[in-house]
C-alpha cells in the first residue's frame, strides 16, 4: 500500500500542494491531469528523485520519505523511456540485476522470462537506438520490472506512441499488470486512456489533487469545477423505452432519439456519451441511418484548441466537441443544420436495477 500524506513541494515551474493519496496493493491507479499539473513531479517524489521537505510517503507501513531511490525497490519508466543508448537491449534489462550481483544463470533466466512476458525476445541483441517507440516502451518496462519491484511507476507510457500502438500497448499494460499483480501508478493527460485502464484514478490540477475515485465516478460525477472543466460533462440521456433486437443489440428511446447499442444484459435505464465521442458533419453521412441525427447548432463555446457545440435534436440538446481548426473549416455557426453521429463503442450503458421498462431479454 502506498500512502502519500500532506505532500508539498515547490520546484519553481512545478509544484505540489498538500497531496493526500492512498493506493491499495495490486491496484492500477491512474493520475490524470493537464500538462503542467505536476503529475511527473508526484511520480518522481514517490520514486525518490526529489528531496521532500514537507509531507511523508509510506509504502507497506514503512516511511520511505527520505530513503534514496536505490533503496526504495520501485520500478520507474520515465517519459520517453530513457533507455541507456550505450547498452544493447539485453544489457539494459540486466542493468539493475548485475548491480544487485545476481548470478549469471539467474540473470539469464530473468531476461528470458521478461523478454517473453514483453514479447521482445527477438529484440534482445539489438541496439536500443534502432527500436520503434513501442519496442522501446517494452524494453523500458522489462528493465523496470527486472528487479521484481513491488511498485511500478509509469510516466506517460503511451504518450510518445502513434494511436494504433498506444491502443495496443494499453491492453498489454493491463495484461502485464494482471499477470504480475504489481501496484501500478500510471500518469497521463489522456482521458480515454485513463478511463480504459484505471482501477481508480486521481485528477491532478495545478499541483493539487482535485478528485480521487473510480473512473465512472470521476467522469460522470466530477467533484468540482476544475475537474469538470478538464474532463467536460458527458451527455446523459434517460431512456424511456428499451427493446432487445437480439444478436447482442438493444434499441433504446431517449426523449425521441432512437439509439441502437451493443448490449447483452438487463434493460437500460440511461446512457451517457462524452461530447468528444459525437461526430459532427455538414452533410448527411452515407450508410445506414442508425445512431445519426439531424439537429441545429444552438451554442458554440471555445475552450483552448477545442470548440464545444450544443446541438438541438428534437427535444434534446446534445453536447459535442471538435478541434477548433476543423470547426473553422466547416463554417459551423449558431443556427446551422448539422448531422450528428454517435460513436457506438463509446456509449456507456447504465442498466436498470428494477425491471419496469418494457424489455425483452435476449435468449
Amino acid at each position: 500500500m502506498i500512502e502519500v500524506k500532506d505532500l508539498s513541494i515547490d520546484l519553481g515551474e512545478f509544484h505540489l500542494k498538500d497531496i493526500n493519496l492512498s493506493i491499495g496493493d495490486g491496484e492500477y491507479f491512474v493520475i490524470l491531469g493537464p500538462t503542467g499539473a505536476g503529475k511527473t513531479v508526484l511520480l518522481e517524489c514517490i520514486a525518490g528523485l526529489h528531496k521532500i521537505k514537507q509531507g511523508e510517503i509510506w509504502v507497506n507501513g514503512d516511511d520511505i520519505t527520505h530513503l534514496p531511490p536505490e533503496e526504495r525497490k520501485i520500478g520507474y519508466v520515465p517519459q520517453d523511456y530513457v533507455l541507456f543508448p550505450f547498452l544493447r537491449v539485453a544489457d539494459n534489462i540486466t542493468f539493475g540485476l548485475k548491480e544487485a550481483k545476481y548470478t549469471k544463470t539467474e540473470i539469464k533466466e530473468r531476461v528470458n522470462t521478461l523478454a517473453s512476458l514483453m514479447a521482445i525476445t527477438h529484440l534482445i541483441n539489438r541496439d536500443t537506438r534502432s527500436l520503434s517507440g513501442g519496442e522501446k516502451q517494452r524494453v523500458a518496462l522489462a528493465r523496470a520490472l527486472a528487479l521484481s519491484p513491488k511498485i511500478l511507476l509509469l510516466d506517460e507510457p503511451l504518450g510518445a506512441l502513434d494511436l494504433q500502438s498506444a491502443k495496443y500497448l494499453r491492453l498489454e499494460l493491463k495484461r502485464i499488470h494482471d499477470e504480475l499483480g504489481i501496484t501500478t501508478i500510471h500518469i497521463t493527460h489522456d482521458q480515454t486512456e485513463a478511463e480504459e485502464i484505471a482501477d481508480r484514478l486521481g485528477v491532478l490540477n495545478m499541483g493539487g489533487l482535485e478528485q480521487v475515485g473510480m473512473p465512472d465516478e470521476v467522469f460522470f460525477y466530477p467533484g468540482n469545477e476544475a475537474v469538470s472543466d478538464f474532463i467536460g460533462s458527458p451527455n446523459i440521456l434517460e431512456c424511456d423505452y428499451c427493446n432487445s433486437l437480439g444478436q447482442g443489440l438493444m434499441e433504446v428511446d431517449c426523449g425521441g432519439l432512437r439509439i441502437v447499442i451493443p448490449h447483452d444484459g438487463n434493460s437500460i435505464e440511461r446512457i451517457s456519451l462524452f461530447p468528444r465521442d459525437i461526430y459532427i458533419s455538414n452533410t448527411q453521412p452515407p450508410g445506414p441511418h442508425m445512431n445519426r441525427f439531424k439537429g441545429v447548432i444552438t451554442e458554440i463555446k471555445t475552450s483552448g484548441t477545442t470548440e464545444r457545440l450544443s446541438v438541438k435534436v428534437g427535444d434534446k440538446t446534445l453536447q459535442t466537441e471538435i478541434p477548433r481548426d476543423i470547426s473553422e473549416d466547416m463554417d459551423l455557426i449558431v443556427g446551422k443544420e448539422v448531422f450528428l453521429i454517435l460513436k457506438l463503442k463509446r456509449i456507456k450503458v447504465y442498466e436498470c436495477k428494477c425491471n419496469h421498462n418494457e424489455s425483452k431479454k435476449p435468449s
Partner: protein
Amino acid sequence: MSRLLKGVGGDRAFKGATISALVLLAIFFIGIIVSMLAYTDWDTFISALLSEEILFAIRLSLITATIATVIAILIAIPVAYAISYAKFPGKDLVDSLLDLPIVISPVALGAVLLVFFSTPLGNSIDDNIMKFVFAVPGIILAQVVVVSALAIRLLKSTFDSIDPRYEQVGRTLGLSKARAFIKVTLPLAKDGLIAATILTWARAVGEFGATVTLAGATAMKTETLPVAIFLNLASADVEKAIAVIFLLVIISVIALFIMRKITKRRYQI
C-alpha cells in the same frame, strides 16, 4: 543599408559576404603554410628534426603533455560535473573564476606561479617536496594550470548535454549516486571525454607562456617543442625552428582530425 539586405538579393549578398570571409581566412592560413614550405630546405629539415636537441624536445613535450592532460582531466571531471549538475550559492561566480585561465595570458599565470613559489609555503614545497621552479615538474604544473580550465569547459558542455534522467533511472535500478555517475553518466560522456582529452593534450603540447615563465627555457633541460622554437629563433637557427613548427602543426592537425572522427560534432569553447 538594411534595405539593401532585404529579399532574395539581400540573402545572396549576406551569404556571399560570410563565405568570402571564410575563404579569405583559409587563404591567409594556407599562404602562411606555403611560405613556410617555400622557405624550408628539406635536407636541413630532416637533419634538424633528428638532432639530439629536437628529439629531446619531442620526448619531453610528449611526456609532460600526457601527464598534464591526465592530471587536468582527473581534476576537470568532478569539477565540470559539479558545475553542471550541483546547485549551490555563488555557483555563477565559481563558474566565471574557473574561466580565468582561458582569458588570462599564460605568461601572467606562469608569473603568478613563480610568485607563489617565492612565498615561504611555495619555497618549502619547492625545497622539500618537489622542485618546480626551472625544473620539469614546473612544466607539468604550468601546463595543468593553463589547460585544466579548457578541460573543465569542454567537459561541462558534455555533462550539460546529458539528460539527468539517465542517472535517475540508474538510481531507481539500485545504483548509488557515485555508482550511477560511473556506470551511467561516464559512458554517456565517453565521446565528449575523448574529445576533451585530445584537445587538452594538443593545447598542453603547444603551451609556452606559463611554461617558460615557471620552468625557464634551458636547452636540453626544460626544452619542450614550443621552447625549442623560441630558443632556435633566438639563436637565429630558423631552419630548426621551422622544423619544430611543422611538427607542432602536424600534431595539432592529427589531434583535431582524430577528435572530429570520434565525436563528429563541434564543441563550443
